[in-house]
Structure formats: structure tokens, C-alpha cells
């Protein structure tokens, strides 16, 4: 009951007897009831507010400050360099290369995951036998933790013992060095698509919310299955798809999967990354952990942070006319 004690302390002056508090609560005028509710709101939301300030806002502000310095955690002679780090990262070709690769990765992995997830959802939403089993098996890979995904794909695409090269040689092709350049990017992409079951489950919930009358109306009007899908199902799913696009872009920008696909998955392993998987976040890791350049790496982080905000904003902006909200999300539940 500590929670209750905390609220009692917050609610009334110290020493106030419990009994009097109880009596007063009943005949209290309306305004103090409201005030009590207001105080209670902040009491209840304070863990998140304080946590958000201390564990998100403060670290990001700290990173912003560091980004103007040469801080490396060791040298006591670090100093303020103004925008020096920012001008350095603009002239560093690895920044631009890795940024371009990250953009390409997000622009391919997110739409492909959504198409795959949506396709699977439509497939297992049909009246089929063992539907639950198919759904579970297709979704299961999405629960596998990143380390498991990394190791599974390293085993699958191993030069010697991997099944991928086994299949290639079976059909008379040469074995490929999948985990090296230039193929590593495809392994990375496939490892992301493996979790398409996630989008399948979420789309499935959306598909089941689509009012049946709409499908029936479309059928009576003589619409083909594809037309119904395009003009009824997709618009009704569009809020779900928008959310998945935004979270997908953010997830793909900060994926650590390239690291987990190297022989040694530790943060020191960034030096062993194949060029094609050297994404922006890996560049940050290299500067942060391999070189300890906290100041410079913080500048890189802040650039990425701002870019993510801009891209997210743009996605919302460009879809505002397209996304269709059938129900007011506030009133829904």
C-alpha cells in the first residue's frame, strides 16, 4: 500500500487524521474536488513525466552539448569547438555514403515488409483449414529476438555450411559469399522481412474491423476482388499502414542487425562490417565505441535525430489527405 501512502501525503497536510480527511472529502465544495483530481492526475503521470525528462530529454540535451565539444571520455583537454563537429561530418564522405545506404534500406525494407505483411494477412484471413496454425507459424519469427535472428541468418547464409549456398550448388550455380559485399545487403533485407508476421497480425486485426456491409456492397456493385481490396480494404487499413510505415522507418534507421550479422557481434565488430551494410547507425557506433569520439558521434546522432523528425513529419504531411480514419480513435475503445 505504499502507493496509497504517497498519495495521502500528497493530498493533505502532514498529520491530518485519516478520519477527518474522509469526512471532508464528502462535503468538500466542487472546486476542491476538481483541484484534487488535478493533483491526482499529476501524481499518477509523474513517473512517466520524470522518467521522460531524466532518461530521454536530459540525455539528448547532454548529447547536444557534447556535439559542440571534442569530448572523448579520456582526455582531460577536451574543449568547445562550436559547430566544428557538424562541419566535419558534412565533409566526411562516410556520413553521406552511410546515410544514402540507410535511406535505400528504409525505402526498400519498409514497403516490402508492409506488402509482405498485408499479403500474408489477406491470405490467412480467408476461410482455410488450420488457419490458427498458419497464423501462428507465420508470426512466430517476429518473436525471435535480434540475436536469434542474426545467428539464424548467419547459419543460413554461411559460405560453407549455409542452406542458401546448398540450394545454389544443387542447381549448378556457384556458392556466394552472402555475408560479404555485395550480397550482405540482401541478407540484411531478408532478415527484416522475416518478421513480416508482425505487420500481418496487426493488419489482420484491422481486416477484421472492416465492416462486412462494405464488402457486400462492393460485391453487389460488381466490384472484382482486387478492386474491393484496393478501394475498400486498403483505405480502411490506411491508419494501420501509416503507423507501420512510420515505426518501420524509425526501426530500420536504427537497426543493429548489420552488427549481429558480423562474425563478432560486439560493438567493436563495426570495423568488420561489409561496406554494403555500413549503415549510418553503424558509422555512429564506430565513432562512439571503436574510436571513443563522443563529441563527434553525438553530432552524428543529433543529425540523424533531426532527420528522423523531418522524415516522420513529411510522411504524416503527405499522407494526411490519403489516410482515412473511419472512427475517431479517441472514441473507439
Amino acid at each position, binding site marked *: 500500500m505504499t502507493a496509497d501512502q504517497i498519495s495521502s501525503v500528497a493530498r493533505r497536510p502532514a498529520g491530518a487524521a485519516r478520519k477527518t480527511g474522509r469526512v471532508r472529502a464528502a462535503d468538500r465544495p466542487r472546486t476542491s474536488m476538481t483541484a484534487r483530481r488535478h493533483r491526482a492526475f499529476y*501524481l499518477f503521470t509523474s513517473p512517466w513525466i520524470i522518467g521522460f525528462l531524466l532518461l530521454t530529454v536530459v540525455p539528448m540535451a547532454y*548529447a547536444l552539448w557534447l556535439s559542440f565539444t571534442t569530448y572523448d571520455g579520456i582526455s582531460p583537454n577536451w574543449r568547445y569547438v562550436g559547430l566544428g563537429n557538424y562541419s566535419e561530418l558534412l565533409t566526411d564522405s562516410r556520413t553521406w555514403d552511410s546515410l544514402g545506404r540507410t535511406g535505400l534500406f528504409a525505402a526498400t525494407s519498409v514497403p516490402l515488409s508492409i506488402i509482405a505483411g498485408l499479403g500474408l494477412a489477406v491470405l490467412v484471413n480467408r476461410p482455410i483449414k488450420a488457419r490458427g496454425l498458419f497464423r501462428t507459424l507465420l508470426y512466430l519469427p517476429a518473436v525471435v529476438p535480434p540475436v536469434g535472428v542474426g545467428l539464424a541468418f548467419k547459419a543460413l547464409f554461411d559460405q560453407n555450411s549455409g542452406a542458401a549456398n546448398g540450394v545454389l550448388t544443387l542447381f549448378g550455380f556457384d556458392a556466394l559469399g552472402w555475408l560479404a559485399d555485395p550480397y550482405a545487403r540482401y541478407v540484411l533485407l531478408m532478415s527484416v522481412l522475416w518478421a513480416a508476421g508482425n505487420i500481418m497480425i496487426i493488419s489482420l486485426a484491422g481486416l477484421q474491423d472492416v465492416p462486412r456491409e462494405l464488402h457486400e456492397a462492393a460485391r453487389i456493385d460488381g466490384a472484382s476482388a482486387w478492386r474491393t481490396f484496393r478501394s475498400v480494404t486498403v483505405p480502411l487499413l490506411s491508419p494501420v499502414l501509416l503507423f507501420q510505415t512510420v515505426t518501420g522507418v524509425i526501426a530500420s*534507421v536504427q537497426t543493429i542487425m548489420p552488427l549481429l550479422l558480423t562474425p563478432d557481434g560486439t560493438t567493436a565488430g563495426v570495423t568488420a562490417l561489409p561496406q554494403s551494410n555500413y549503415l549510418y547507425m553503424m558509422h555512429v557506433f564506430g565513432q562512439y565505441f571503436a574510436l571513443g569520439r563522443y563529441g563527434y558521434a553525438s553530432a552524428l546522432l543529433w543529425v540523424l535525430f533531426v532527420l528522423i523528425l523531418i522524415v516522420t513529419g513529411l510522411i504524416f504531411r503527405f499522407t494526411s489527405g490519403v489516410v482515412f480514419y473511419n472512427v475517431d480513435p479517441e472514441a473507439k475503445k
Partner: protein
Amino acid sequence: MTATSVPTASAGSATGVTSSHSAPRVRIRVNRLVLYTVLVALTGLFIGPFGWLVLTGLKNPAELAASPVHWLPDHVQWHNFADAFNLIDFLGYARNSLIIALIYATLVTLSSAWVGFGFARLEAPGKKPLFGILLGSMMLPQLITLLPTYLIFAKLGMVDTYWPWVLWGLAAAPYLVFLFRQFFAGLPQELEEAAIVDGCGYATIFWRIFLPQSWPVLSASFVIAFTWSWGDYIAPQLLLSTDRSTLAVAVMSTYVTTAGTPVTNLQAAASVMYVVPILLIFLIAQRGFVAGMATTGLK
């Protein structure tokens, strides 16, 4: 989540009936054959990588080095699993993972329920913008904020302790707050009105009336948070030294010979043992888990 089988199912059941004469029936049958073939092939493709990991864990080193791929082990090496257990302190790492996951999942579930109650049942000026920030913070790139947080934890001497997970647990997680908020907002108003007239504080109302009602969400939240923590790789890799680290880190980086070459088969066996508990938890808690996913994903 399950069921809601639409009446069009009659088209499906018709395939069982023998009716070789009418053309539409044949077409439906062919369609269904194609449908099931596609489904089975896709399912195989999705289960494949994990199946291959299990197979890799059952081979001996010579089979893994063989040049045309050795598809199946000649003699299934069950002892690989025992060896993987003994090569490193597997149980010790599993215990570390378990402790961290239990601390985090318990704290974050309670704190998120507490905060979710505030957003669902209480009013105050500033609530709307705060809720907006909460929803927006779901989309914050967590890895980006983790790196400077790591530096701060290092300065405060919290590296190599479990304090970071305690703090993250106490701070509530936006996804779970939203989950609880949705649930609490759906409960009838009369629930707290009687209690308020009786003079109960909101904390009592939350603890005595709302929390006991919310077992489905509590367990869903606990399972989701537990799997997050169990699956997390980068935070323990940064914050904990090798000995105190979690199974995720150990499986990834400690299966090497003294010369530094990875012991692939034992590592594969270990990763299977690392992943399977999560798969089991998911299968047991499937309903709540999926419902939770759908609620947070839909918004």
C-alpha cells in the same frame, strides 16, 4: 483475435463434396489447391531459418566444414546442447537475463498501469499536450537516446549494475501506458464514483478497484516487457561487463575457441536454447500478447 469466421466459408467446405461435373466446382478446387500450396510453401520459408539453426546445432564441426553442404547430420549430435551448456556458464547468464527481465517487466508493468490510469480516468490542465507527447515518444528512436544515456549512467557509476533497468522500469513505457489507458478508459464510470463518495483516494481506487480488474492487460504487459528485456542485446552489451551480462550477449559473443574462431554448432545450439523460452512464452500467452500488439499497433 481468433475466429470471426465469415459465412463465405461455405465456399470452402464445398470442396470436400465430390462434384467432378460442374466446372466452377473444379475451379474452386484448383484455386484451393493453389492457395494451400502457397500457404504451405510460405510457412516453410518462414520456419526454415529457425529449422536450419536447429539443424546446425545438431551437426558436428566436420559436417559444418564439408564443402557441398551436408544437409542433415549423419549422427544427430544431441550432446551439442549439453556441451553448449557447459562451455560457458549458460545457467549463470540465463539467471542474469531472468533477473533483469523480471525486475524490468514487473516495475514497468506497474508504473505503466499507474500512469495509464492517470491518462484514462483523471483530468487536469495540460493533459492533452502531455498525452500528445506520450504518443509522440512512442516514435522516438530509442537507440539514439540510449547512447548518451549510457554515458550518463557511466558517469553515475551505474555501469555493471542493474540500476538502469530499475530506472527504465520505474519510468513506464509509452506503449504499455497506452495499452493500460485504452483498457481503463473502457471501464464504467460508476466504478470510482461510489469509491469517491466513500472518501477513497485515487491511489486506493487504482489499487483496490482498477488493478484487480485488469489481469488480462497486466499479464499481456508483463509478457511484452519480459520479451523486450530478454531479447534486448545492445543495452546489456553496453552497460554490463561480460560476467554480469545477459544470455543474449553471451550467446552472441562467448562461443569462441581460445584461438578466437567461433564454435558454430555449439553457438547454434545455445541460441536455440536462448530463443525457445521466448517462443514458448509467446505460445502460452498468445491471445493477450496479440491483442496487446494489435491495440498499440492500431493507433
